[in-house]
């Protein structure tokens, strides 16, 4: 019994990481109805940028703080230079552009950093844990990760629901043509959205690298976990995305508890089951 409680607890913590992966994707879809197939690779890019900075002698904390705005700029540029040119009713061009981008980022990382597995060195935090009694302990790093996921969602919701620019975001999301009539430049809103999404990718990249090994090839799998979290949670709700991430995380640790080879498979199966019984997710808000 304790083993199961421990498994579910670890799953919830893992879900924190997955919802960090998913938050950027959720924001992009909510505002632009766009799916970024390079999302997972951009998370891995974030991890590698932090790694590159620390290997150049920059302290880890400074590297993390610097990479977040850097990724924001990358996202802003990506949207204004590439993706804004492909807006329209046909979803094929933006989808294929991000697919091409995924291949470029993945192979660019492979060429620059080789296929070796890496890990971010977080010192004593790596193995620190809090005993909860009864032989159950939770890692400090996974806990910080879950709390960061919550903090990111709280601050994004703060921006979206309490600021003037947030109102512009929501207006663009609700009806882009009417928003334009009200004087909102949807293209710059889109660029800001992609910037925010990639800034969150940088945060996710840090926890990816601090919690487990990574290499250039693992991006697409992160995209799938993120996507599953968004759909399970229901489109348009960031708290739903957090719940979705936790569902995927718990499904994976429970699967792994039964048979280690079933970890990834049970996450996917949980997603398919939710899709069959609640096609609009657990907490749907947006109509599309």
């Amino acid at each position, binding site marked *: 019994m304790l083993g199961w409680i421990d498994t579910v607890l670890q799953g919830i913590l893992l879900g924190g990481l997955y919802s960090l992966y998913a938050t950027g994707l959720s924001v992009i*879809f909510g505002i632009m*109805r*766009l*799916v970024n*197939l390079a999302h997972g690779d951009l998370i891995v890019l974030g991890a590698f940028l932090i790694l590159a900075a620390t290997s150049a002698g920059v302290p880890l904390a400074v590297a993390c703080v610097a990479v977040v705005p850097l990724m924001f700029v990358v996202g802003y540029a990506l949207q204004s230079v*590439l993706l804004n*040119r*492909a807006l329209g009713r046909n*979803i*094929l*061009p*933006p*989808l*294929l*552009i991000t*697919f*091409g*981008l*995924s*291949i*470029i980022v*993945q*192979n*660019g990382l*492979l*060429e620059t950093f080789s296929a070796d597995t890496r890990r971010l060195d977080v010192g004593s935090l790596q193995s620190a844990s809090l005993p909860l009694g009864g032989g159950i302990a939770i890692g400090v790093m996974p806990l910080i990760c879950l709390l960061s996921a919550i903090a990111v969602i709280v601050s994004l919701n703060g921006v979206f629901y309490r600021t003037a620019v947030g109102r512009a975001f929501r207006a663009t999301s609700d009806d882009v043509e009417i928003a334009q009539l009200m004087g909102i430049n949807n293209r710059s809103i889109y660029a800001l959205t992609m910037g925010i999404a990639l800034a969150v990718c940088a945060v996710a990249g840090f926890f990816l690298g601090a919690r487990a090994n990574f290499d250039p090839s693992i991006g*697409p799998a992160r*995209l*799938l976990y993120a*996507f*599953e979290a968004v*759909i399970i949670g229901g489109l348009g709700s960031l708290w739903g995305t957090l719940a979705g991430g936790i569902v995927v995380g718990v499904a994976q640790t429970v699967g792994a508890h039964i048979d280690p*080879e079933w970890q*990834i*498979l049970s996450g*996917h*199966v949980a*997603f*398919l089951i939710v*899709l*069959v019984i609640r*096609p609009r997710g657990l907490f749907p808000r947006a109509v*599309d």
Partner: protein
Amino acid sequence: MGSGGLTTADPGATPRFAVARATRASTATLILAVPGILLLFALPAFASRVLLQELFYVFTMLALAQLWSLLAGSAGLISVGQQAFVGMGAYALFAFAVVAGLDPVLSVLLAGAVAGLVAIPAALIVFRLRGAYFAIGTWVVSEVCRLILAQVKQLGGGTGTSLPTDVASSMIGLDFVRNLFAVRGPAARDILDYWLALMLAIGTFLLVYRLLRSRHGLALSAIGDSEAAAESTGVDVFRTKFLIYVLTAVATGMVGALIFLQKARISPDAAFSLIDWTAYVIFIVVIGGIGTMEGPIVGVVIFYLLQYYLAALGSWYLILLGGLAIVLMLFAPTGVWGVVSRFFNVSLFPVRRRLIVSGGVADKNETKS
């Protein structure tokens, strides 16, 4: 197609009009295609084994590209999970040929049926997702197939397995080829694989071509223009898309089975490879021109040349392909064939209907479908 809205300059004369699809170029293509195909069938008599193996790859990729173009271009079902059906077909081949001991050629056909059977529940689940989310949904399905097959120990589990030589050399028709060309076992296998690939490529082409020219093709272009309007004129959108998805899966499964019959070795990572069976295929269709019959043919030739000269660059080659796809999507979304056909106003395999009035073409811009 109807006569509504047709007006002529002279109200007294009865307008005479007909609906046509054939063009002079398309008739010429059909006439030239017959000796061309016969030549391709006769090729093993004088071509080297290497050339046959290269053409095998070209034909199988062409078939996959033609199918993806139908799915994504004509039916609007943008899938990045077609490797699910390549892999299921490939594994079904190994199950039938190695475990059940059936003839490999027969197993290729049965593999198509297995892929179709997998596609039915897959479609019922992923069709709940719309647009871009459908794309990632198909990818999840493919990952589920890969992870499940990695658990099947009889088929090699996670590391994979090889096709035993006695199974591979028991193929129906192998003795015929051996005697016809007076060649030894492996060479005869190459010739037979080549013929099967050629037949599958032609079969896929005819399937897609006939489908697009049928009432289902008309329904598809109506859906492409407006789903709601198509539905209101009596098109069953779900049924049409479902039919295309499953049919495509059957054909993709057969191509996948043939590819791995030739490779004679299978593993979950190779059979369900996103890069090999979806990224390359998308690249071929995008560079050639999506939603046309000619596009994948042009695309596969360009892709083959790029692969031949640049594949040695490794990751840089993939970066180049990705970059090329992005540039094309931005500046020439209809691909090379789209640009050529617009510039010369030519169509070799027309699927659209044109209105011809009193011996002249009424609408030069070929009314859509």
